[in-house]
């Protein structure tokens, strides 16, 4: 058997201990395997698909699209949220298990975008029905922008606390439900 070499291997080749925090390890695991729910609403979804395809390849982040909300950690709202769809988006979000995160992708999803003034059928921002963690601007955002949004989300997840009550701004619905639990 070859001898393991290199600075890190040398450090850990002997039986040894690594000290860290539960937060660090769990958050690292969470942010490294964000499973987004497979759904797109409009042209932003085309860019989202490009982000998932080989050129940009969000598999590098451990992101694997899931076909069901029950196995998903992340909802990427990619496109125009019509009022008709908004109730479905809300229901899909509620079907996702905790912890769950939402990326709002593109101007339509952020605040109605071009339908801001003359859009009788468009929700003025998906944050009216689900709590949004990261907003990605653009119409549509390029794959780089979405990847930047994902990395921003990873930064936020890394700051999360696992065994403590979550701050209201982090996955805010989760924080709220846990706060209710704590008061009982």
């Amino acid at each position: 058997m070859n001898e393991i070499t290199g600075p890190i291997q040398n450090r850990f080749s002997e039986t040894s201990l690594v000290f860290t925090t539960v937060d660090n390890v769990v958050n690292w695991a969470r942010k490294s395997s964000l499973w987004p729910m497979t759904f797109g609403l409009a042209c932003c979804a085309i860019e989202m698909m490009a982000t998932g395809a080989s050129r940009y390849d969000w598999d590098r982040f451990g992101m694997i699209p899931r076909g069901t909300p029950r196995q998903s950690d992340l909802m990427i709202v990619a496109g125009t949220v019509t009022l008709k769809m908004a109730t479905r988006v809300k229901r899909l979000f509620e079907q996702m298990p905790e912890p769950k995160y939402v990326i709002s992708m593109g101007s339509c999803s952020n605040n109605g975008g071009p339908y801001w003034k003359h859009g009788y059928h468009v929700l003025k921002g998906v944050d009216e029905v689900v709590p949004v963690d990261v907003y990605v601007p653009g119409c549509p955002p390029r794959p780089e922008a979405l990847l930047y949004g994902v990395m921003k989300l990873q930064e936020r997840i890394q700051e999360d606390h696992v065994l403590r009550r979550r701050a209201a701004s982090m996955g805010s619905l989760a924080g709220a439900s846990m706060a209710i639990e704590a008061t009982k």
Partner: protein
Amino acid sequence: MEAQALHDRLAVKFGERIAAFQADALQPWTVVAADAIAEAAAFAKADPALAFDNLMCLAAADYPKDTPPRMELVYHLFSYTHRHTHVLKVMLPREGALVPSVEGVWGVANWHEREAFDMFGIGFTGHSDLRRILLPDDWEGHPLRKDWVDPEFYNGMHVRPTQQMVERFMAGEKIGVGPFDFTPFNAHVDGE
């Protein structure tokens, strides 16, 4: 066949129920009385000289400022046999408009008439399944009518942007309000 000849063929058959003809247009059109449209459509399809076997488009338009105020249904016809096109129009009152369905002539009219009903509230007699096609079933009103006003809420969701939303999006959050605009309006300052 030329537009005039197409119109004449319909006019001979239907007489006074063909109201008008506009030849000086990009797509010349014939005005058909509302109660005659289904028969006229059937004739236009069955007649070997016309042979309009395809309804390209069925659209509606609202003209509240005309005298009298009216709605229009516009039928774009095409013949694969003769490669000619023609347009039929039906003038309707703005309230309680009711037209015979042409679904029995061209099956595609099913969805087109549902859309005209959904957006303009035009009723179609003899339609097999006249319900909303795009908007939710519990939607109230017909939004492409010119007198449409956005409601405050739909199922608890804001339809119009609130003052709070305006302030939030205009005053610093760089989310963008439309295509190609990623900065708030107050950031557009000369020299920056």
